[in-house]
């Protein structure tokens, strides 16, 4: 299967280790992380991470839901 690129924006409650959890989340599910950007939201305690991912996985949608297993996840958007 061909590798495709996915860009996902994840709004999180900013806490140490949240980034590690997100990276772990994608690695466990067969994604490779190409780049990560952190964007300050202006709102206290909230930041947005933009992940560029490579994946052969088709069922990306269902992983969107599963990102909410990380309690700090507030919102997920595909770009």
């Amino acid at each position: 299967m061909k590798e495709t690129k996915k860009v996902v924006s994840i709004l999180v409650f900013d806490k140490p280790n949240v980034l590690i959890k997100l990276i772990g989340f994608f690695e466990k599910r067969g994604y490779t992380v190409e780049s990560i950007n952190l964007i300050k939201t202006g709102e206290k305690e909230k930041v947005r991470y933009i992940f560029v991912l490579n994946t052969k996985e088709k069922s990306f949608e269902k992983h969107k839901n599963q990102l909410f297993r990380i309690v700090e996840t507030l919102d997920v958007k595909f770009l």
Partner: protein
Amino acid sequence: MKITGASIIVKKLIEQNIEYIFGYPGGSVIPLFDELYNYTDRIKLIQPRHEQGGTHAADGYARSTGKPGVVVVTSGPGATNTVTGIATAFMDSVPLVVITGQVPVSLMGTDAFQEVDITAITLPVTKTNFLVNHINELAPSLDLAFHIATTGRPGPVLVDIPSDIQKAEIEERKIKRGNIENFQTKTRIDEKQLENAYEMIENSEKPLILSGGGVIISGATRLVERFAEKNNIPIITTLMGKGVYPKNEDLFFEGLGMHGTYYGNYAVQNSDLIIALGVRFSDRILGNVEKFAPRAKIIHIDIDRSEIEKNVATILGIEGDVKKIINILLNFPKVKKDFSRWIEELSEQKRKFPLKYEKRGQLKPQYIVELVNKYFSDNTIIVSDVGQNQMWTAQFYKFKEPRTFLTSGGLGTMGFGLPAAIGAKIGNPDKEVVLISGDGGFQMNIQELATIRRYDINLKMIVIDNAYLGMVKQWQELFYEKRYSATPLPDNPDFSSLAKVFGINSITIKDWEEAEKAVRKISEMNEPVLIHALVDRDEKVFPMVPAGASLNEIMLE
């Protein structure tokens, strides 16, 4: 006025109405234990003999009461000893708050004595965790820890607190509250979805309710029973869902999956609509996922949206508290469709292929479970360990009340039973608590017999001694040509004598008659007691769906 970190912790525990903590001291929690010493009338300390035991005890307390279990341990080895207990609680969605001591902030990162990065270690097995490296953060972190552990889908949260933070002082009026608004779970329920669900039930021929641990956790047991009875829909439960039991027994078809009932699995494989409530579709109930419930559409209701569409495809996923949702569904009129032919079809399977074992020859473990069922009342809390003993308990005990079956489902942690039973009894002094354990697992936290003696915990223990790691041996017998690698336990201690050494009464049984006498006797006793049951070493758990097989490929013997 200034107040110390240790004092903040204790105040927060009191604010959360914590009555018991399960704690073990050490260098980096001396300040906290010193503060707790001032409050022994408000917060009772239960001290296990091993931090793993303490963590399972807190877990048993939480599972049986619904209140959070609190663990306090020292840094380094104290903290790492809790990891199995935390992972056990995580897999079964049990609310724990684990407070670990840490080396002083100035020493962190230097490989100091008893320093371990416990927040990193527990990252994948906690809902979240906190490293408090400033006194300002202490109170907010504890607020969030209790909030997160107990709301939404519950689970363990760890708070790592360096010893100098416990000693540091802060002006009382400067203490902040945790911002729990950031962690609110969704409460709005989409009524349109419920109308959809209702319509699907109305249009189905063979609906089936699959009730899971989420139903127990949300306190929806009675509502789910009522919903099933009102609409005449058959019901099965997962291992964690035991406790749901409709008064109309004709609707109840027990369990599914690897060691479910024949008819429970038949129901899944033949249903055309599964209404799944608070379940996570673990591989132990799915078998081969491609062949799971081939005829059924699945409606999945769960408070944790990350479970929906995770393991099985659904026609309708509804995020929300199952209690609220069933309550709304109960307001709908009774479904007009008549499902009695479907129920008759299942009942016939039940008559043809009941759960059974041979009631002669050497003493069978299943009989002991049936005796416990016979002599103890329905509100007795039954705790199992892991292995065959667990599956026999699940199959042959009739669980009729929520929170009466405590078992390590997701992690399958041997050694869970004894300490969890201790915690359950502490949380339920007015209920009987019976432990049914294997001989292998019992020896994994056997030191906690000393805890029973210290606090005079009136616990009834039954050790099913088959001189094997029976469940693994069963796989070896069936799938590995009887090559019993590392499973015989020919050198078990005499558990009866062992109990006596700890100051606990005991009875040894080896035949059917002795078994009945002994179980009746312990049901009348008002003190801790252990039954050492020497049972048939070759007994197996059936039915069985081999790992990865379809639920149709069920072995009856």
